[in-house]
């Protein structure tokens, strides 16, 4: 969290994260350039420019696959949440690797000609009506442009400027980028006599992303069904669970009929309810913890006081709050959200409950 914008708010975990990323890319490229040739028995060497295209291109598609796996993986097993923490740097590095691939292609395949490389990329192959002949370069360029937009707007300044809702929607473009990148490979490199092993790797990457998202989606759907707020005779109050369901210093997530989700936290002998959406990146507050008396988002550690949904000074983030009351051991929730930052008296849990 920060009250001012800095290029990067470095901390130990971010430094380790970035060091592992850079080391991983370096090892990958080194293996591609130096290790793989030891297993290859070819008539002569592949042109170095083409090897570089393949190395950076394959690295980018694998990185994008991993980036997209982190989200559902963290939903299925929260121990992977630290991988989510600095995922933006992963995305920026992925863009740089993809850009290097594109520069190699533009300089080599689209260079050495009177035609400008950009004109060539956009205009040489125009067989858009053909499947096998489709200009796959345009798919790669689409993915690259999306990754570029995401990379340059990855800073929290843009998150604040665009609002989390717009920023999030913009960054969901990563799925379009991945689809374009996969089709770029399928209609490009995969048509180039690369053999069944290459196709299997690409299919496994795509299958992994789809499989993890389906698994995480099914789990969310089941949790929503199990934890959905039930109507009561005392409208508009809805039943949001039982006190015993809420572990101390943790929260539960209560889905409402309109699709919103409410996070109910227990801290000491008190219960409070906030919107489940963190004001930073819409992270799931209800899956966070109480740290230093504040609800702490599991994604990036943004904090809010449970009584009023405000970040403690000097921070200024706010989330909507909700009214709670108890009926025996049942927690009743007023599903009408109060304006962000509205103080609400916490509900005291009697010792008998």
């Amino acid at each position, binding site marked *: 969290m920060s009250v001012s914008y800095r290029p990067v708010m470095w*901390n130990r975990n971010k430094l380790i994260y970035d060091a592992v990323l850079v080391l*991983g890319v370096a090892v990958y490229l080194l293996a591609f350039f130096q290790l793989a040739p030891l297993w290859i028995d070819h008539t002569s060497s592949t042109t170095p420019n083409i090897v570089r295209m393949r190395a950076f291109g394959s690295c980018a598609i694998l990185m994008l696959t991993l980036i997209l796996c982190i989200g559902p993986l963290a939903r299925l097993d929260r121990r992977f949440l630290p991988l989510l923490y600095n995922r933006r740097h992963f995305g920026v590095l992925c863009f740089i690797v993809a850009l290097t691939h594109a520069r190699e292609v533009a300089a080599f395949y689209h260079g050495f000609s009177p035609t400008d490389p950009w004109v060539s990329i956009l205009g040489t*192959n125009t067989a858009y009506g053909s499947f096998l002949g489709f200009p796959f370069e345009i798919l790669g360029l689409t993915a690259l442009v999306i990754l570029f937009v995401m990379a340059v707007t990855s800073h929290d300044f843009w998150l604040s400027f665009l609002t989390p809702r717009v920023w999030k929607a913009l960054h969901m473009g990563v799925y379009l980028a991945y689809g374009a990148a996969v089709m770029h490979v399928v209609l490009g490199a995969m048509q180039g006599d690369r053999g069944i092993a290459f196709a299997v790797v690409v299919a496994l990457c795509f299958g992994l992303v789809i499989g993890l998202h389906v698994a995480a989606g099914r789990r969310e759907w089941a949790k929503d069904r199990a934890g959905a707020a039930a109507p009561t005779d005392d409208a508009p109050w809805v039943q949001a669970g039982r006190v015993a369901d809420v572990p101390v210093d943790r929260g539960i997530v209560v889905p409402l009929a309109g699709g919103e989700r409410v996070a109910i936290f227990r801290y000491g002998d008190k219960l409070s309810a906030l919107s489940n959406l963190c004001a930073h990146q819409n992270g799931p507050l209800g899956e966070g913890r109480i740290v230093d008396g504040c609800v702490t988002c599991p994604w*990036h550690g943004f904090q809010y006081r449970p009584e009023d949904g405000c970040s403690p000074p000097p921070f200024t983030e706010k989330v909507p709050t909700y009214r709670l009351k108890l009926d025996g051991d049942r927690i009743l929730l007023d599903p009408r959200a109060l304006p962000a930052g509205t103080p609400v008296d916490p509900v005291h849990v009697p010792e008998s409950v």
Partner: protein
Amino acid sequence: MADKSTGTEGRGSRNAFFVGYLKMPRALGLFLSYAVPMIAAAALGAGLVMATTQPDPGAGRYQGPATTLTGIIEMEPHPVLYTVPDDDHPQGRALALTRFGKNGVVPQAAPLAGQFVDVTGVYLIRDEFAMFELRRTGIVAAEAPPDAFALPEPEDLGEFTLSGEIVDSKCCLGSMRPGVGKPHMACAQLCLIGGVPAMFQIMDEAGEETLLLLADAEGRDVSSQILDYVSLGVEMTGQVERRGPMLVFRIDPETIRVL
């Protein structure tokens, strides 16, 4: 903002709570010290599969040093030098011509069409196939050799329907390794647009490769009509004719079918 020095520990890695700006809970750090290398190893393994299954690019290469050949240039469908026979090549050679970059030699060769010329450059050679890339002085008029020599008379070998890949001869013969296939499509199209001779690469059942110079039904340059089919597996019908050591495939672009 939190003054705790670490995220909340809980019991075991499953209960540990990570807060990015606090110290990593020990149990979670231990879990990640196993999990992250495993994920990285899987990605590295996938990359190595992709790296080690790269196709054999073939033996195409430039062969120097620059040398000067004497012969007659025929312009249609593409500039081809028919060299004067010598001891090494009693039948003479037929060498399609190109120059640096994705460029043909029509501007340089046209004024000397049908004449004896000296051509300076280097070979592009792959297996038994060769072409010639101009260097420095390029093409200059030469005196006729003492022995009679003329362009070979075309010999019609009949109509054929052949399947294979339309390639730019320069990359196909080793200017790029590999210089064929879909990933190389735009490069091949640029080469053909630039005037590099278009050829048709076919394989027989035994894997023996043949390269045929492509022309339209009248024997002229057909490149502009076949650009959409370059680098794809295609089948097409036309007349095959032999011009000395060179095979020319005179096609009707309307017969091209993507396989």
